[in-house]
């Protein structure tokens, strides 16, 4: 039911782990629905001085699609400016994976929300520091 790309990401997920001194953290989902994703981001600056996702990692409890979308999300967001990363849409991750079964599309939505929450967390924190 999963395509090869999804299975590849599931078997060897990219950027899996924790960033101890993360600038932003977003946790979404709940154990009752079966999927929990936690996205850690580190924010840096590019040559133009724009804020970018300089590092990103994930921890996920969930099904094959949840792990694969987490992995894909980190690949897609890494190196992007916060603005660009924030534009990664709900189903963009599933599309980048070459599609997911209908019942699994919520995993793509969840990964999108996890990143949005991590970016939001960073913005809240940096506001406080100012």
């Amino acid at each position, binding site marked *: 039911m*999963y395509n090869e790309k999804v*299975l590849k990401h*599931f*078997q060897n*997920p990219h950027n*899996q782990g924790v960033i101890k001194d993360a600038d932003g953290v977003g*946790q979404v989902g709940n*154990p*009752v*629905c*079966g*999927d*929990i*994703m*936690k996205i850690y981001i580190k924010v840096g600056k590019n040559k133009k001085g724009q804020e970018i996702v300089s590092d990103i990692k994930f*921890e*996920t*409890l*969930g*099904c*094959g*699609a*949840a*792990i694969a979308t987490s992995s894909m999300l980190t690949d897609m967001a890494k190196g992007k400016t916060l603005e660009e990363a924030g534009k990664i849409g709900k189903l963009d991750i599933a599309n980048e994976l070459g599609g997911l079964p209908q*019942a*699994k599309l*919520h995993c793509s939505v969840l990964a999108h929300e996890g990143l949005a929450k991590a970016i939001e967390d960073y913005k809240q924190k940096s506001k406080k520091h100012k």
Partner: protein
Amino acid sequence: MKNIYLDNAATTPIDPAVLKSMEPYLRANFGNASSLHYVGLEAKRTVDGVQEKMGHFLGCLPQEVYFTSGATESDNMAILGLTGAILRANSGFKPHIVVSAMEHDAVLEPAKQLSKDGVEVTYLKPNNKGLIELDSLRKAIKNNTVLVSIMYVNNEIGTIQLIAEIGQLIKELNEKAAASAKATASRRKIYFHTDATQAVSYCDMNVVKLGVDMLSLSAHKIYGPKGVGVFYLKRGTPFRSLIWGGHQQDGIRSGTYNVAGIVGLGKAIELIADKKKNKEENKKIKELRDYLIKGIKKSIKRIRINGDMIRRVPSNASIIFEGVEGESILLMLSQKGIAVSTGSACSSGSLEPSHVLRAIGVKPELAHGSIRFSLGRFNVKKDIDCVLKELPLIIKRLREMSPLK
């Protein structure tokens, strides 16, 4: 890649002897069992022979054995066929049926359809060990109850229901009602169906001892071919056909006989009916299953076993791995050439975890982490050793990946 098949409750590999028995009926003996010429007669005689064998195995008349496309059809026949006949004969009457909450969807879905048509349905909850209690069944019975359907062995957790005791209870209720019916005439006869799909290899299948009016089974769960099963319908049980056509099988179930499939089913039953061999085989399966559970308990922490361990078929180990999602376990085992199944929501197409685990009171967050190992005739100790080597690593890896430590 290794090929370790531990999903025998989903389907079994075909036994070589079964395949061999079927082959002539896919080649030279291709006849339509309803044809009057010699080609047809040969096919009809073969079908009659299997019908007789089935009757002997189930302890019923050969004429009470109907061949179907499998247990889903047989279950539909039981639920819809009986209720349909009663509805047709009693306009204005609102029948009540009782099914257990842990039935297969092949029973639950037709029951749901009936409830849309105004039939009253009670979903009987098992206790937290996965067993239906006689008392709770007694309490569920009403004056308008016409059918009780309780599966013999649950497909997910392998628990064995007290079918003979339930049969006895229903018989007593019917006798009591008959004695007082002259006064009230309101109490209906209750018919009893069991879905025995998962029981055939392991349990007493005598329909008289069980006290059932209807029974379903499938060939592909007992090393036979897919697409063929049996519906036992006791003589005198009200029934309205679901499939209409060329009047085969007394019009109860029309459609050209699946001769090769029926032959394969017959062979599969013959292999199980060899009591000595069957006993040895089940003993071996139980030893392997117990070895698996023991090994998992030893090497993996935070696990739970679903369902009663005593009233349980020897083949089933349903285990929850806390803090891990079942589909991920399944996929990683599959990568290692080990086939199992899961009660996780993610595998079902819905977002709800297994209704069976929910019915026995398992919290959804735990039900997501369930794996069903179902052993069978062709498993060997080496298979289990391989699982015991790979599984702890997989659980460790997935737990490390989780944000919940």
